[in-house]
């Protein structure tokens, strides 16, 4: 017992010492940024000591916890299929239904406000993006670091179609999705033969290329100034504005209501909610079809798939295209909601955020994406301090999740469809 305590103390002291060394240059010294380009330097050695002490304490607590509760703080190396499959949760379906009911009722609830509905719209955009990326990363197992490119293609194609051909949101929506999907096929075709991590880097490159082209192709995209005046969606041809632009009826006139800008906010919220629900139904359906099963099989073992006669390139390409299409829909909605788009909205940071949502939620889990999106989007709203630490905590959480629960908060790696007879036969032997 005594030796174990001594070992734990020694280990914690070592961790604390490393933390001190790490913190010394970057925490201990800083330049005075206020007041011009002065190069005066000031020290913050108390912070360094606090950091070292904090790491010492945290490491000690972790060691003690690990000794007391070995199963809780176990590093997630286990890949045993029995643990991964797990029983199907029936509670999840009920919870999902309750969540949908709450989402529909949100604008009408007594505590609801314009701000809350707007926040809900942002959350839903990320949920939709997360579900789109989930098809690519979670189901097909292809790490896409440039997902934001498809989001951008959707947004810009809607804005440009609306500007050049005068189409409204609903006519242009399928076109943007289609354009994004064909873009996905175009980009995906040459690169999908690559190995997983190479693919990730290439998609990162594509994402950056798309952003740089948007930034520099001023004639078409408006460069850094972006495109303003993207049309708003209509409710079966009724505009949600105080006055109809060309003599038609507005939403409020048609229904005999008095106009209020909240109607547009609520309407946008319901549009994205409907889009998200359709997306959810679509991807849940898809993963039960042969193509969805092929995705999951491919994620688990590409070589075995090849041996079974599944063409990996075609299967991957379909996942890529469908993910891209969903991203394109979300992009078109983003453009119509903001009314203004610029390349600044489509940086790598955005790709990383969407990926973080999928990873934290649990790759392949629809509900996990919802929870992670709510968590990550609403978190910075709690205050400026939280907003500043948001990305820092994102990064730390991504590492921690990979170390402790590599399958995400809600792990879903059980195949969507399983052969009952075979399962029974295995159990019988």
């Amino acid at each position, binding site marked *: 017992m005594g030796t174990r305590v001594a070992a734990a103390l020694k280990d914690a002291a070592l961790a604390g010492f490393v933390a001190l060394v790490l913190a010394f240059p970057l925490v201990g010294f800083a330049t005075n940024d206020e007041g011009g380009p002065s190069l005066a330097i000031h020290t913050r050695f108390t912070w360094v000591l606090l950091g070292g002490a904090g790491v010492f304490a945290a490491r000690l607590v972790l060691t003690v916890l690990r000794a007391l509760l070995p199963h809780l703080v176990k590093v997630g190396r286990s890949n045993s299929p029995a643990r991964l499959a797990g029983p199907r949760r029936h509670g999840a379906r009920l919870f999902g239904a309750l969540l949908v009911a709450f989402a529909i009722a949100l604008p009408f609830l007594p505590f609801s406000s314009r701000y809350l509905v707007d926040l809900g719209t942002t959350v839903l955009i990320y949920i939709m993006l997360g579900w789109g990326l989930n098809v690519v990363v979670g189901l097909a197992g292809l790490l896409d670091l440039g997902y934001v490119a498809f989001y951008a293609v959707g947004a810009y194609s809607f804005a440009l179609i609306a500007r050049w051909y005068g189409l409204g949101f609903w006519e242009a929506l399928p076109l943007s999705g289609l354009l994004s999907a064909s873009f996905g096929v175009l980009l995906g075709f040459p690169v999908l033969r690559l190995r997983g991590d190479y693919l990730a880097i290439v998609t990162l490159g594509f994402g950056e*290329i798309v952003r740089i082209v948007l930034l520099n192709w001023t004639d078409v995209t408006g460069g850094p100034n972006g495109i303003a005046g993207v049309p708003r969606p209509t409710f079966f041809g009724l505009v949600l504005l105080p006055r109809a632009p060309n003599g038609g009826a507005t939403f409020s006139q048609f229904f005999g209501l008095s106009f209020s800008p909240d109607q547009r906010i609520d309407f946008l919220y319901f549009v994205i909610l409907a889009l998200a629900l359709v997306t959810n139904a679509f991807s849940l359906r898809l993963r039960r079809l042969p193509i969805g099963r092929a995705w999951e099989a491919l994620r688990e073992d590409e070589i075995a798939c090849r041996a079974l006669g599944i063409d990996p390139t075609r299967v991957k390409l379909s996942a890529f295209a469908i993910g891209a299409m969903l991203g394109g829909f979300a992009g078109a909605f983003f453009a119509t909601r903001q009314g203004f788009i610029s390349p600044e909205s489509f940086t790598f940071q955005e790709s990383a955020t969407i990926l973080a949502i999928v990873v934290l939620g649990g790759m392949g889990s629809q509900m996990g994406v919802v929870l992670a999106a709510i968590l990550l989007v609403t978190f910075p709203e709690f205050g400026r301090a939280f907003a500043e630490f948001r990305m820092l905590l994102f990064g730390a959480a991504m590492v921690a999740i990979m170390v402790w629960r590599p399958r995400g908060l809600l792990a879903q790696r059980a195949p969507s469809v399983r052969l009952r007879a075979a399962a029974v036969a295995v159990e019988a032997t």
Partner: protein
Amino acid sequence: MAYFLQQLINGLTLGAVYGLIAIGYTMVYGIIGMINFAHGEIYMIGAFISFLAFLVLGALGLASVPLALFAVLLIAMAFTAVYGWAVERLAYRPLRGSFRLAPLISAIGMSIFLQNYVQLLQGARVKSLPPVVTGGFRIMEQGGFVVQMSWLQLMIIVLTVALMAGFSVVISATPLGRAQRACEQDMRMAQLSGIDVDRVVALTFVMGAALAAVAGLMVMLYYGVIDFFIGFLAGVKAFTAAVLGGIGSLPGAILGGLLIGLIEAFWSGYFASGYKDVSVFGVLILVLIFRPTGLLGRPEVEKV
């Protein structure tokens, strides 16, 4: 011709820096087969530590420039190496043996974390340092265009060559290098023959981080400005260099770095500089599609 020569010099300088960063990618990939996405951030941290070290040494009254440079070089390498070690220990070692994409996702998380860590601690503003090494010499003059090479450019190239040479000796002639090569060939077999694999991997990260710190110092001196975001682009470019040269191959990393530096310099010299990063990404994509093993790499056989 004169303009060409000037771009050649600029490109070689840039390429030397990319090569130094690329070594870190290529060694880690060679041994544990993962893309250390946070390596660009390590380089950025190296640049920040050098910047702060210069200011502190200046405040302490160290006036001699060569001495200060040498001290900063050592300080930056030492502290950045500890960062490299800590990143491996925290974010990658627990994941050895986990599923394929786990280390990459963890590395992306680490990269986001480090970027914001530095931003929160040191501020988001661009830091600028007045030139430390000034002056240079003329190489030739043609039609009023003077081709010059600054002392700093010469220093960067010479230092890179020296580090490369020292490094090749370490890899080929020391017990550590032999252990590294053994781990690269077969990690399990290396472990069975008594090599402490964890230690070898950790030392690989330490060496890569120290070289990245040198690159950070060089870039800080060369451009005079740094911010918390420089690691991302430099990291992607250096990774491209590693892939172009053949990932896992040390001479390949330097060759790739020089080529990427030259491509970037000539592209901005002769074409639209707004698209210069596209040229690098384009090279990356083309190489991966048509020659995934790079120029000097060996083909990789995937085993079941």
